[in-house]
């Protein structure tokens, strides 16, 4: 019964999104207030019905209704409650339902908060969002219906992939999806603006919070996924250049570019068509990400559904949405007003350069990810180009970009002189130079590249701090407390985000250069040294989990700052007959000790692999700082004022200059 309610709700949502499309487009064209009101109401109805469908599916999982095929395939009565719930989106059909749910949430919020928008623009945004809704609800209904029944119903279900049975599953996909789908709002705004033929500062001020919110979610989602992989895959890697990771990295890179170019559009009215194009491309990369995971066109650890029919459908969606968007762009964008002029050395120029580098980095990742598909056309079908490729393509593009980050905020709008800029960055440059010298002296000349990377991280942090120093007028002395108070939240936001990038850089540099590992057979009582710490295997015992059996090894780690106990498990999941490794991780600021056990030998010894990962947590701490910086910026009053202001300021472009 519950599943049928969900099914019906999903069908209704599909029909409503068709209504929303037509009402939005026609209503805006005819300037018909009642049709446009209908589009807004439809957005709410869509949320209501998609929400109902999602709850129905979640309920089916929670009560373990195995007569629903999806539940039978991915859940089991012995599975802990939280993973029954998480299993709702831990599979293809359910995750697509989550996708449309988030889309519906955004549609409803445009309908709710968009009252200050031009009514026709709002209606068109809603219509474009509804088109996306039609496409994905149709995808869900016609190729991956989550509510199919099984007859006769099995006695119990099989199991959620054990690798997914982790608290990470509960947070990682929804946050990431919020990020992916969030860019649909920017996409819808871009298309609506192209149709209207009008882009102004008010438009940018409206789009930026959406982009920022998506970017924050994507940042957190990627960081959470990376941390999750670090502790569950049991081999201590934090980034694998896996196609699906790349699929989230590409929209993040483009979203970062969009975030900055929208800033130029808002403040200076420049980069108009460029920003629109970025909005289209960013969402297209979200779509491509979906295509990648769902089509089986590439091999990936994430690929949980390989189905060519679905691939064709999603490819159709990409072709339809991105294709028509880019065609519309080619047709309408040349007619748009061109932006204000600026000198090459100016904040606009800096941001343009930032965009160029981000675009190049995205292209490198894109080629690496799809290289197998491209090569397949020429000869065979390969599988993975791996880190060697990205080391020589992505890294050389990204390092100069990181070097530029500190320059951006020190530039004035319109024009600048090198002397001025370098003068403002005097101290960060001195500090970073000192860091480079010190690191080279400590680690030796052979490690000069690592020293350079560490100095780069220091430069980013110092450069961010210099923004505050300048803002607070610390050097001129007196009354600086007042400036601390009057500094806008958005400034603190980007300072924190740029500094976070530096922290992440330090983490990546340190762990890439200095991680150390050992593999050995250990007997209980045996002791080894790693990374200045002494690690003793205390015991190896069998334990029983709710739906698995495990061999549990306990280690005592004694370091300079005291001692701690680490537990690593080798788990065997009975229902799906799979093994997983739970690593034991000793987290600390200077670095982690990571132990993971393999199989037990007949003589009672156990295979142990242990790593010392210096500064690895800084990678995620930096990502969190970036996301938190984004949140501060989002909370800034100016941005909120921007929400309500456009209606009162029709000539907003003039006012923003």
């Amino acid at each position, binding site marked *: 019964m519950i599943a049928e309610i969900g099914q019906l709700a999903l069908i209704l949502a599909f029909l409503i999104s068709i209504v929303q499309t037509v009402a939005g487009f026609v209503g805006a064209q005819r300037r018909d207030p009642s049709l446009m009101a209908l589009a807004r109401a439809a957005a709410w109805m869509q949320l209501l019905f998609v929400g109902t469908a999602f709850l129905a599916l979640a309920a089916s999982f929670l009560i373990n209704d195995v007569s629903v095929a999806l539940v039978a395939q991915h859940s089991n009565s012995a599975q802990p409650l939280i993973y029954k719930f998480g299993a709702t989106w831990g599979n293809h059909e359910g995750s697509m339902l989550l996708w449309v749910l988030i889309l519906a949430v955004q549609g409803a919020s445009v309908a709710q908060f968009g009252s200050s928008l031009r009514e026709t623009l709002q209606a068109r945004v809603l219509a474009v969002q509804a088109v996306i809704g039609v496409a994905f609800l149709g995808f869900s209904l016609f190729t991956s219906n989550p509510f199919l029944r099984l007859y006769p119903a099995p006695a119990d279900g099989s199991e959620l992939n054990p690798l997914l049975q982790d608290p990470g599953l509960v947070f990682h996909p929804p946050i990431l999806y919020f990020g992916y789908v969030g860019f649909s709002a920017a996409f819808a705004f871009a298309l609506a603006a192209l149709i209207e033929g009008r882009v102004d500062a008010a438009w940018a001020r409206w789009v930026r919070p959406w982009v920022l919110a998506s970017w924050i979610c994507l940042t957190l989602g990627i960081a959470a996924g990376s941390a999750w992989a670090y502790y569950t*895959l049991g*081999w201590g890697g934090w980034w*694998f250049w*896996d196609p699906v990771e790349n699929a989230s990295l590409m929209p993040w890179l483009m979203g970062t570019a969009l975030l900055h170019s929208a800033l130029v559009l808002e403040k200076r009215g420049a980069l108009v*068509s460029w920003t629109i*194009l970025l909005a*289209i*491309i960013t969402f*297209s990369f979200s779509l491509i990400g979906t*295509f990648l995971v769902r*089509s*089986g*066109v*590439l*091999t*990936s*650890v994430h690929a949980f559904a390989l189905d*060519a029919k679905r*691939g*064709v459908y999603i*490819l159709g969606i*990409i*072709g339809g949405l*991105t*294709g028509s968007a*880019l*065609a519309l*762009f*080619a047709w309408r*964008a*040349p007619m748009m007003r061109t932006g204000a002029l600026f000198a090459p050395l100016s904040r606009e120029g800096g941001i343009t350069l930032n965009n160029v580098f981000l675009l190049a980095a995205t292209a490198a990742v894109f080629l690496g990810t*799809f290289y*197998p*598909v*491209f*090569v*397949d*056309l020429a*000869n*065979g*079908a*390969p*599988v*993975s*180009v*791996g*880190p*060697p490729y990205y080391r020589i393509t992505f890294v050389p593009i990204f390092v100069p970009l990181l070097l530029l980050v500190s320059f951006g905020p020190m530039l004035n709008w319109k024009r600048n002189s090198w002397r001025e800029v370098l003068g403002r960055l005097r101290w960060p440059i001195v500090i970073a130079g000192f860091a480079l010298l010190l690191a080279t002296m400590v680690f030796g000349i052979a490690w000069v590249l690592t020293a350079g990377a560490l100095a780069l991280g220091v430069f980013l942090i110092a450069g961010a701090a210099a923004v505050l120093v300048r803002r607070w007028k610390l050097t001129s002395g007196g009354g600086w407390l007042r400036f601390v108070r009057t500094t806008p939240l958005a400034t603190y936001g980007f300072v924190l985000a740029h500094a976070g990038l530096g922290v992440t850089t330090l983490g990546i540099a340190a762990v890439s250069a200095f991680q150390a*590992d050992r*593999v050995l057979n250990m007997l209980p009582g045996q002791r080894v040294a790693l990374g200045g710490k002494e690690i003793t295997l205390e015991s190896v015992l069998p334990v029983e989990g709710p739906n698995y059996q495990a061999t549990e090894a306990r280690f005592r780690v004694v370091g300079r700052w005291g001692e701690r106990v680490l537990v690593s498990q080798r788990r065997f999941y009975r229902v799906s007959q799979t*093994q997983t490794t739970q690593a034991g991780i000793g987290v600390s600021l200077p670095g982690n000790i990571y132990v*993971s056990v*393999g*199989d037990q030998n007949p003589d009672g010894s156990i*295979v142990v*692999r242990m790593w010392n990962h210096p500064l690895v947590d800084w990678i995620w701490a930096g990502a969190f700082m970036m996301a938190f910086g984004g949140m501060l910026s989002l909370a800034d009053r100016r941005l909120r004022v921007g929400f309500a202001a456009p209606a009162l300021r029709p000539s907003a472009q003039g006012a923003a200059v």
Partner: protein
Amino acid sequence: MKRLVFLVPVALFAAVLLTFAIGLDRDPSRIPSVLVGKPLPAFSLPGVRSRDSGLSSKEFRGEPRLLNVFASWCVSCRVEHPVLLQLKQQGVPIDGLDWKDDAAQGARYLAQNGDPYARAGNDRSGRTGIDLGVTGVPETFVVDGRGIVRYKHVGPIQPEDWTSIIEPLMDRLRTQS
């Protein structure tokens, strides 16, 4: 002229879309190698594990063997690994080619995840990989008793690949030699 610039994105996109459409039509693990039916290209590689004396193309004589290309940095290989271990238990002779990888890293990978290989060679520069037409990892070659490549499998070997394609082929080759 300026209009043409705005057409660039849509043209590029059309090209990418076409590629995807064709790519989707192809089974990512079908038999594509030009090497099939030809002798294994000559190579002689240093070993991976301390007990290895190396891996040479001359050693593919006598019985049919599998040559599995792997790397410690390869994610898909970890998916395939349990299958290889199972095959080893069934007595299938498998040799490993550690592609574009540090030998020490490769040895650690095997020590940690289990070791399915009879012999293993390290192809650090990737030269042998080029000769073999390796475009990514994992890939697996079926080499018969006379050193002739009979089949190339691209991507992780799934249990059904083994039972439906590779095992029957190996059985046939074994009776021939």
